C-alpha cells in the first residue's frame, strides 16, 4: 500500500500526466452528459405542454358531456383529461386577448364542451387520437401533432447521439489512460523484472501499481468533479444572464450532484484500476 502511494510521487511526471488525462476526459464526458440531461428535461417539459383537445357532441346534455370523461380516461396512453365547459372555454379565450370588452355579449353556445387531454407518451399520438375518435360522444379530436412528432424526433436523436458520444469518449479516455499507464509501467519495467527475479508473486507486484492507479483515478475524478461544478455554475449563470426570454431552463448542479459523484467515482475507479491492471500484464511475463 505504502509502495503504491510512494509510487505516485516517485513517478511525478507520469502521475501528473495520468491525472490530467483523466480530468480532461471526465470533464468532456461530464459536460456532455449534463448538457444532454438538461436538453432531455427541456424537451420533456415542452412535451408536457402539448395537449390534445377532444370536442364533445353539441347534442349531449351537460351531465352526459361530463360523463364522456370516464370513457376518455379508459383510453390507453391517456394520462389525464380535464373537462372544460363551453363557458370556461369562452373565459379562457377572452382572457388571452388584450381587450376583453370586445367579446361582451358573446354566447358561450357558439363553443363546444371539450376535454383537455395529456398523454403518457406523445410518440403514440396518432394511435391515441384514433382511439379518442372512437369514444362515443366525441366529435372532433385536435392536436398539434406535427409539433409533437418534432419533439419526439428530437428526443430520439438526442438519446442516440448521447449514447454514442459518451461511449466513444469513454473508450477514448480508457485508451489514452491505459497508454499513459503503460508508459509509466515501461518506465518501471526494470523494477518489475527485479521483483519477478527475486520471487515476488504476480499479485504482490500488481498490488502497489493497482493502488497507485486507484489513487490517480480518484484524484483525477475528484479534480474533474470540482472543475465540472465550477464550469457548470459559471455556464448556467452566463446563459441565464443573456437568456431573458428564459428559453433555456437548466437544472441546478445540486440536482446532478449524486449521479455526477457516482459516475465520476466509478469512472475514476474503473479507469485507474482497470488501466493499471491491464497495462501491467504485459510486463509480468518475465
Amino acid at each position: 500500500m505504502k509502495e503504491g502511494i510512494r509510487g505516485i510521487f516517485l513517478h511525478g511526471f507520469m502521475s501528473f500526466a495520468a491525472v490530467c488525462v483523466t480530468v480532461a476526459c471526465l470533464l468532456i464526458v461530464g459536460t456532455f452528459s449534463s448538457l444532454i440531461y438538461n436538453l432531455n428535461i427541456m424537451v420533456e417539459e415542452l412535451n408536457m405542454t402539448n395537449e390534445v383537445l377532444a370536442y364533445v357532441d353539441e347534442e349531449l346534455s351537460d351531465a352526459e358531456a361530463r360523463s364522456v370523461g370516464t370513457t376518455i380516461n379508459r383510453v390507453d396512453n391517456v394520462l389525464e383529461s380535464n373537462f372544460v365547459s363551453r363557458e370556461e372555454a369562452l373565459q379562457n379565450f377572452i382572457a388571452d386577448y388584450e381587450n376583453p370588452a370586445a367579446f361582451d355579449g358573446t354566447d358561450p353556445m357558439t363553443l363546444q364542451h371539450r376535454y383537455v387531454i395529456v398523454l403518457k407518451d406523445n410518440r403514440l399520438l396518432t394511435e391515441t387520437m384514433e382511439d379518442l375518435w372512437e369514444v362515443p360522444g366525441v366529435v372532433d379530436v385536435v392536436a398539434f401533432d406535427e409539433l409533437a412528432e418534432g419533439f419526439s424526433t428530437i428526443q430520439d436523436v438526442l438519446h442516440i447521439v448521447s449514447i454514442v458520444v459518451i461511449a466513444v469518449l469513454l473508450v477514448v479516455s480508457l485508451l489514452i489512460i491505459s497508454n499513459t499507464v503503460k508508459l509509466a509501467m515501461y518506465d518501471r519495467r526494470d523494477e518489475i523484472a527485479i521483483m519477478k527475479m527475486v520471487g515476488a508473486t504476480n499479485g504482490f507486484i500488481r498490488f502497489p501499481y493497482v493502488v497507485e492507479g486507484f489513487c490517480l483515478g480518484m484524484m483525477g475524478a475528484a479534480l474533474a468533479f470540482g472543475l465540472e461544478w465550477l464550469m457548470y455554475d459559471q455556464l448556467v449563470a452566463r446563459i441565464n444572464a443573456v437568456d431573458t426570454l428564459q428559453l433555456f431552463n437548466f437544472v441546478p448542479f445540486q440536482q446532478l450532484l449524486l449521479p455526477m459523484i457516482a459516475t465520476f467515482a466509478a469512472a475514476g475507479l474503473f479507469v485507474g484500476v482497470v488501466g493499471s491492471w491491464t497495462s501491467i500484464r504485459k510486463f509480468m511475463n518475465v
Partner: protein
Amino acid sequence: MIEFTDVTKSYVEGNHALRGVSMQIEDGEFAFLVGPSGSGKSTIIKLITGELRPTSGSVHVNGYSLSRIRKREIPYLRRTVGVVFQDFRLINNKTVYENVAFAMRAIGAREKEIRARVPYILELVGLENKSRRHPNELSGGEQQRLAIARALVNNPSTIIADEPTGNLDPAMSLEIMSLLQEINNLGTTMLVVTHAKDLVEHFGKRVISLNEGMIAHDGMDGYYTYED
C-alpha cells in the same frame, strides 16, 4: 540441489539449445559452467530459474520439478535461487540500502526484518559504509557486490552468477570470485557461468563444459575448451 536428467530444449525456430544434458549439482557445491557463445549456458540458467520449461527430460531445482511446476509456484522456486548478472541490473534511483531492501519487500518481508537483515548482508559484501550511496556512485566491483547482496538477502540456498566478472578488471574479478567462494563456504550452492579461464583455473573447482548443447566435459581438472 540442481538435477538435469536427459534434458533437451528446442525453440520454436527449430534451434536445439540443449541435447540430452544430464548433470547434478549437490547442495553446498561450487561449480563453474563454461562454454562458447550459443553452447546452451543461458538456456540452462533460464531452465533453473523457471523462465523456460524443458522440451523433454526432467529438471529438479531445490525440490521443485521444473517440468511439472505450476505457474503460481515459480515465485517460490525463485526465492530459493538468487541470480547475479554481468550487467548488475540495479535500480539507479534507489540507494544501496534500498536496492537490497527492495528485494526483501518484493517477497513481503516486514520492515523490522529488513532493518535487521540488510545491514548484515551489506557488511558481508563489504558495502556497510556505502549504504546511502546510489549505484552510479559505486565502482564496477562495488556494483557487483551490491548485486550479490541483493541476490543473497532473501537467504536462497543456491546462487546462479551469470558472467559476474564480465564487466570487471582482473583484480576486481578475483575479488568478486573470492566473495562468491566465501558465500559458498557458508553453505550456499554456487553455479558460476563464466568465460574467465584464469579464474576458473585459479579456484580449482568443478567445471562443467558445454558445447553445442551437450556436456563436453565435467570434472575437477580445470577449464576445458572445445579445441582441447
